């Protein structure tokens, strides 16, 4: 190693260090360069398509199970029974957001667009059970029992109507009554 190289080494070390230190100094003294977001006090703007926690509007949900089928991690579980009016009645709709990976496939396939991403992203819990979102507060067994009762009632009424050989409008009235019954009992989140 020649003397020239030796000196070059020293000079290069000093100049490159100085260059770097100039940049860090600029950041150090310029308060405008601070980019930290003071999170709990400040929040960033959440864009429109943000994939936060899932929310299912159970009023419009048709219990088609598309979301259950498409979910790659099986975090959605859904129970439904066929109501008196031949439509599916949701007995339970749970999303385990501890498993959910927010891929949004379920939202894309939902035919009535009842399943949606919200902008929520804050949740902390000490038990895994708390990470399961229940969208139907009522107990699934109760709903099932009630729907089964309604179905039976409707069947009995239909039977009776048939047996009494009454006119068709009466039968439809009975059906409507059954439907109203079902609507009243429809659970809310």
């Amino acid at each position, binding site marked *: 190693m020649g003397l020239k190289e030796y000196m070059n*080494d020293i000079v*290069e*070390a000093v100049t*490159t*260090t100085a*260059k*770097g230190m100039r*940049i*860090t100094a600029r950041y150090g003294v310029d308060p405008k360069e601070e*980019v930290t977001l003071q999170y709990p006090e400040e929040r*960033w703007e959440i*864009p*429109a*398509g*943000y*994939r936060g926690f899932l929310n299912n509007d159970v009023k419009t949900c048709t219990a088609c199970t598309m979301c259950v089928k*498409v*979910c*790659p991690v099986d975090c959605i579980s859904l129970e439904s029974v066929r109501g008196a009016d031949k439509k599916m009645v949701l007995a339970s709709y749970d999303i385990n957001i501890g498993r959910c*990976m*927010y*891929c*949004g*496939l379920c939202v*894309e*396939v939902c035919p009535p667009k009842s399943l949606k*991403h919200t902008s929520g992203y804050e949740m902390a819990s000490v038990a895994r059970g708390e990470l399961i979102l229940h969208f139907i507060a009522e107990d699934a067994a109760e709903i099932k029992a009630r729907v089964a009762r309604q179905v039976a009632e409707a069947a009995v009424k239909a039977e009776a109507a048939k047996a009494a050989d009454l006119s068709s409008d009466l039968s439809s009235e009975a059906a409507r009554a059954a439907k109203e019954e079902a609507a009243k009992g429809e659970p809310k989140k």
Partner: protein
Amino acid sequence: MTVRTDALPTQEMTINMGPQHPSTHGVLRVILTTDGEVVTRAVPDVGYLHRGLEKIGERVTYAQFMPFTDRLDYLAAMNCNCAWAWAVEKLAKIEVPERAEYLRVIVCELNRISSHLIAFGSYTADMGAFTPFLYAIRERERVNDLFEMLCGNRLTYNYARVGGVSGDAPPGFLEKTKEFLDYFEPKLDEYNNLISYNKIFVHRLANVAVIPAEEAVAYGLTGPNLRGSGVPFDLRKDEPYSVYPKFDFKVCVGTGERGTPGDCFDRYMVRINEMRESVRIVRQAVARIPDGPVMAKVPRLFKPPAGEAYFRSECPRGETGIYLISDGSVNPFRLKIRTGSFVAMNIFEKVTRGLMIADIVAVIGSLDIILPEIDR
């Protein structure tokens, strides 16, 4: 540097580096046999993050596997998304609307930038300079903001779909992208001034773990690791896919700028230069993006014809090759993924012989491995 084992009769020491070690970029375990500070043998022990991704792929449908590709390389999820989409489209011969392809290229290149930023940042942090890492993270956050705007997520995007992309660019996205590029491009010069050409940094990287071009090819290295050895092989140019042929960009190769071609510094510089090229590509794509739909007609119950396809695309960590066999059902019959990080691990033992412990960190960082890609 040669191993000076003959100099003094000393005892070798076996040290376990990882799976919990700050510089192994995850749960990589390297079993080091050292003679003092000199490493006589470094054997990587992979598999701590094995999740059976390929097996999962055989059990879910083609569309359902998309979110799993996010986890293949979580720092470049967009690239993996698109690679999967391209592979399935190749298998099923689906024509994708051009706007969707443009959007894919934009997000792929943006993600290449953000991935290389992490590679750059964590590398400097490995070398002891913590500040550039935070600068890199700051820039990456802006890319994440863009992606959040586009698809709603910041890390695992699940943006591409078989036959297109999940959503069109929201209003303002392209403008914001341009804004980001204008902001980002000068930062690269700043990085170079701050650290790339810093004497200590150059000394730490130059002439360390030299991989000659023939060896790089023989070991099957891909991506920046291969180009760092001076082999101008880039799938975007050499096996063009998507709309890449429409863009003008340069393939960055290692030139031995500060030492021998194929050393750690070359691999590092290739990444820095690639960010600049990515900026160029995104600029062109944003300027020329056509209007139109972003999704081809794909049946809901998607069943590709029986057959097989191999598609490889240029991901930030090298070639991600997806080999698919379909038996005509909704699930792939067999899925095999080839990743850049895994092949980089092959050469690890060879290039680390005779280096110092600190160099092991430098080699891991310069190969820019990511564990989910290695273990899958």
